[in-house]
């Protein structure tokens, strides 16, 4: 067993089986075995250590990294407004994507063939075409439908708008990201719902819970346990995918630094600024994910809960 993974788990398991065996045996019976020599481990340590040293040395001595420039631009208002827009794009399109995902997943499992096939078609299309194409498409939707009107289908219309006025580049970005995300989230949520034991649904029904109540109180909380890790992945991917919106002139984080380095040619320091911001935001998200997982994993005996028990 890999030592890093092994110790925590075995120690936690040992604690569960009542007490440390070493305290309950007399001292002369304790085996002090010589460890197996592991020369490979030493060599690996030296190699990796050297590589890290070279990396750090390069980071410090190579002037092109321009750490001073990085520090200078890190908190400039243009960068900060880019960060803000990246967060807005991520939060809004993730939230919309989750809602679309739930609807599409439930449709997919519907006994009505029109519903399930419509849902299948949606997922097929939005997963099957590049997001970049989808974004440019929404940005140019005005060419396809110059006017958008609200009214009765095939009947009179109550109001109409010019597409280019309603679908600004920000709206196009949000629509494109959300619809794309919805297709991926639908499959993640469907897998979560399918992971819930059928016996759970039967028990809830036998207790007189109607469909919506049992979905909300029994199925979804248990599905969450399965849904959260891949959703965390999606959020982090989304955070970085928003950088694609730079092609439709959305001044999110990457576009903001591009604007700066196109003027002063400090390309690498400004890309470092953007990368550090992305790293910072992903770190915060990962921490949030850990607590969400712990919340929805309550009552479960898992590797995570065993390790927590051992740490306490």
């Amino acid at each position: 067993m890999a030592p890093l993974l092994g110790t925590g788990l075995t120690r936690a398991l040992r604690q569960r089986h009542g007490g440390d065996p070493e305290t309950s045996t007399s001292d002369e019976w304790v085996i002090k075995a010589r460890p197996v020599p592991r020369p490979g481990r030493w060599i690996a340590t030296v190699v990796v250590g050297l590589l890290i040293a070279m990396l750090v040395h390069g980071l410090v001595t190579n002037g092109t990294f321009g750490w001073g420039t990085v520090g200078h631009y890190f908190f400039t208002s243009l960068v900060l407004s880019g960060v803000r827009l990246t967060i807005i794009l991520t939060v809004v399109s993730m939230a919309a994507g989750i809602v679309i995902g739930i609807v599409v997943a439930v449709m997919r499992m519907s006994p009505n063939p029109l519903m399930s096939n419509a849902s299948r078609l949606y997922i097929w299309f939005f997963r099957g075409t590049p997001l970049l194409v989808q974004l440019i498409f929404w940005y140019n939707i005005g060419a396809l439908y110059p006017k958008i009107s609200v009214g009765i289908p095939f009947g009179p219309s109550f109001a109409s708008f010019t597409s280019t006025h309603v679908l600004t580049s920000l709206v196009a970005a949000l629509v494109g990201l959300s619809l794309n995300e919805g297709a991926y989230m639908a499959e993640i949520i469907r897998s979560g719902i399918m992971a819930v034991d059928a016996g759970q649904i039967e028990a809830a029904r036998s207790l007189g819970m109607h469909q919506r109540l049992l979905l909300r109180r029994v199925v979804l909380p248990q599905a969450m346990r399965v849904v959260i890790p891949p959703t965390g992945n999606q959020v982090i991917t989304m955070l970085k995918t928003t950088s694609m919106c730079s092609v439709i002139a959305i001044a999110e984080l990457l576009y903001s630094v591009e604007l700066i380095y196109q003027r002063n040619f400090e390309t690498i320091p400004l890309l470092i600024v953007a990368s550090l911001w992305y790293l910072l935001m992903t770190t915060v998200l990962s921490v949030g994910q850990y607590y969400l997982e712990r919340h929805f994993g309550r009552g479960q005996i898992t590797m995570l809960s065993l390790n927590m028990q051992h740490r306490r």
Partner: protein
Amino acid sequence: MSVPTTSNGHPTVGMDDEFLKVVKATKRFGTTTVFENIDLVVNRGTVSCIIGPSGAGKSTLLRCINALERLSAGRIYVNGEIIGFREHRDRHYELTDKQAALQRSKIGMVFQRFNLFPHMTVLENIVEAPIRVLRQPKAEVLERARGLLARVGLSDKETSYPAHLSGGQQQRVAIARALALQPELMLFDEPTSALDPELCGEVLDVMKQLAHQGITMIVVTHEMGFARDVADDVIFMDGGAIVERGTPGDVLERPVEERTKKFLGSVLARAPS
């Protein structure tokens, strides 16, 4: 004793009235017939054990009584009310999702695999349905839930999660959870089949205690000892039909039908009790 009792010593208060009535019940899945033309009457306050080989249709019949499955033909009445429909002037109307749910809440069911909600504590499992389905006041439900936990001997496990309980303890919580809705009828679907032999006793004891309190019970089981000691009626099912029915003495000790004899012979040979 002044109170009249049944053959197995249960009080006969309000007995002799038909509580559950199954008429010409048939269930098919596609082209396979699970059971056909079953007629069955269970009186109020009695304990009926359904025995028989696997695939006889016992569990499916139980699930139809609780409207978890719908009959292909026939009718089931519980306390005079038809299950799964609304009857009005000889016409049947499908129940809405909520009406069907309300009907199920009057019938308690205990499953072979417990099916406790793993994300809720023991106490939360028990109070969930009375509070959310019947909308009873929280304080009253909590008090009743604690009483039930005491009755099944698990007062100290209130805040435990199901995963930290033994199978026998989980099944006792499941029984308490079903009882929390104060059902008029309790259905048990092989409640001890998933348990280690040494844990069956604690579950059967709780069930015996229930039987003596006069709640109407239908138990699908392989525990012949329980059927002999507790049941008022033993029903032997095989091949989708009721083959033989009578008091435990008649069916278990002096079976008439050849198939019953054969089944009992094979069961008793495996587990001497």
